[in-house]
């Protein structure tokens, strides 16, 4: 699904990622953990294709194709979905209007044709229900005045509607209380399938109690310094990142 080789990324002239190798098979869930500032969000933005993140060395293959040749919306159509650490507020655009525009843009790009209003509404209701996203929320401007939990649930709803093949979840657990964490992780788990891969970025182990990963990687100082199975996350919970931060420096 995703093949990252020796990836170096520079932001504003500063090298943030310093040679990442990562291979994710179809249906696999990989967790990326690491201290603040280690480059986790940077990796997620590079995958999404955000401006200002310059790949200076290495390659990213997605479904066998060079991902870096595609722009942001082409990557979305190809199946990359990034759930943001800090979802952006968009005043004046209702969540419903935004969802409909996004779903139809992606469907058209994938050659599936637009959904009419009735079928779209049915689809939204079906996906919104398990995430506790109410009609009232859908009428509000996108993310404007949403609580931390509402923002994250709205992100997962978008993910469910856009049907991606690689989900990148950047600190989806941050700012969530235990109940909200449960709703969000259940939503994510429902989307797990043999065709869909996931990168779950988190600072804490607790999210991984709910979304159990196949592999865990520790990112520090722009490099993957250790990889293992889900036990690695438990180990980190005990020992913290101190050892790895020292390694990186």
């Amino acid at each position, binding site marked *: 699904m995703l093949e990252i080789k020796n990836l170096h990324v520079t932001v504003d002239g500063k090298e943030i990622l310093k040679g990442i190798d990562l291979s994710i098979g179809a249906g696999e869930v990989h967790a990326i953990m690491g201290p603040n500032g280690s480059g986790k969000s940077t990796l997620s933005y590079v995958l*999404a*294709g*955000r*401006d200002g993140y310059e790949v200076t060395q290495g390659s990213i293959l997605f479904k066998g194709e060079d991902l870096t040749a595609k*722009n*942001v*919306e082409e*990557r*979305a*159509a190809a199946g990359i*979905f*990034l759930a*943001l650490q800090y*979802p*952006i*507020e*968009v*005043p*004046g*655009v209702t969540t419903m209007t*935004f969802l409909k*525009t*996004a*779903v139809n*843009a*992606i469907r058209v*790009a994938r050659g599936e044709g637009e959904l009419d209003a009735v079928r779209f509404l049915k689809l939204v209701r079906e996906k919104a229900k398990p995430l506790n996203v109410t009609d009232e929320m859908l009428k509000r*401007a996108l993310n404007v005045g949403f609580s931390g939990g509402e923002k994250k649930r709205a992100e997962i709803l*978008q993910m469910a509607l*856009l049907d991606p093949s690689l989900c990148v979840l950047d600190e989806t657990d941050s700012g969530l209380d235990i109940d909200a964490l449960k709703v969000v992780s259940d939503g994510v788990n429902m989307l797990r399938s043999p065709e869909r891969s996931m990168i779950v970025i988190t600072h804490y182990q607790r999210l991984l109690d709910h979304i159990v990963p196949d592999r865990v990687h520790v990112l520090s100082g722009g490099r993957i310094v250790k990889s293992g199975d889900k036990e690695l996350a438990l180990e980190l919970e005990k020992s913290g990142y101190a050892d790895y931060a020292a390694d990186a420096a």
Partner: protein
Amino acid sequence: MTMAARNMKTGIAERRLIEEAGAPGFAHAGWFDKARLAALDSFEAAGLPHRRLEDWRYTDLRQILEKRLARVEENSGRSDAPAGLLDAVDAYVALIGADGVEGDFSALPEGAEIMRLGDVLDEGWVRDAMDASVFGNTDAPQAAAIIDLNTALLGGGVAIHIAHGVVLEKPIHLAFSGNGTRHLRSVIVLEEGASACIIESHQAGANAFSDLVSDIRLTRNASLTRIRIQNDDRSAIHLASDRIVLGEGAVLDGFLMTLGAAVSRNQSFVRFTGEGARATVNGVYALRGSQHGDHFCLTDHAVPGCESVTLYKGVLDEAATGIFQGRVLVRPDAQKTDGRQANHALLLSREATMNAKPELEIYADDVQCAHGSTVGELDRDAVFYLRSRGLDEASARQLLISAFLDEVFEAVTHEGVRDILRVIASEWFIQERGRHHE
């Protein structure tokens, strides 16, 4: 005495305008002949406004007209959307050309009249409405002076009278089109308790020079919704001044959308003469290429207890220039005034320019007034966010532009027209970008 026969000391642009206007065809009311000559004298003495006058700092009309009269511009096109979409609005349509007013007004209810201005010039209500003395001590004499040009060279126009207590259910649509130079006046009078909605569409052709003045009187408790869409050819010059007087308890709900013309200047002079009146003077401008759009708004609170809201929002692409000069004047007697004024602009390109000068001038102490002005760019994070959900860049930008403008559309009370304005706005960016990249 004809206009051309006068001995003129003025510049090339002024002389050309006067010669082009020739002897005005319609007006031979005694009072107006005098007013016309007086206006011509003061126009000749002052000349066209230029940038050394503070009110014209950003729009040097003398230079613009001098340049324009020296050469003929190519037809630079415009969006056809507004004209086509407005056809769908059920209204009494009056076509306003250089030489008359056309339309079938037989269906108008008793007490509502649409007439050629020249036919009713001698009527008291027309004369009163055109009487500038109510604005005699206007605080913006430099801006108001350009109205002399219109009075001096007036060639036609429309007069609308809505009698005491008459409520017009359907809007009146004044459709301005045509080419060449036109000096037109609209006189709109709503008597006590009358209510109407008047839509104006402007679709002047290539190189047109439209010089328009509207004299509007809202008598006690009258209520007027006025929606204008200016979509002249992008080689045209559009000059429009509104003098609006609101009596006790009157309500004005005004909206202007500036889309067209190479150079446009809209001036709104709103004056409260009775307590408890309310005026909304809102606008949206969407300009590109080298378009230049100037919006000048003076709201004069001369009496207590009135409320005014001015909210303008604009998007400027390519090398377009937007100007907003606003002033809320609260005179010493005007206690309990509520006056708000704001202009917010989005620059879509590095070459675009916005000049904003909102001012409050307050001489009363018990008032609530606020003004604001912002100039920004599209939020790049939001553009990325929308693109990461599959929208292409143009669609993402368009969605954010529409969202930015929507606050002003939201305040438009005619639902049908509000929807049309939203469609025009939602297509403006993509349509034009598409056209430019063909």
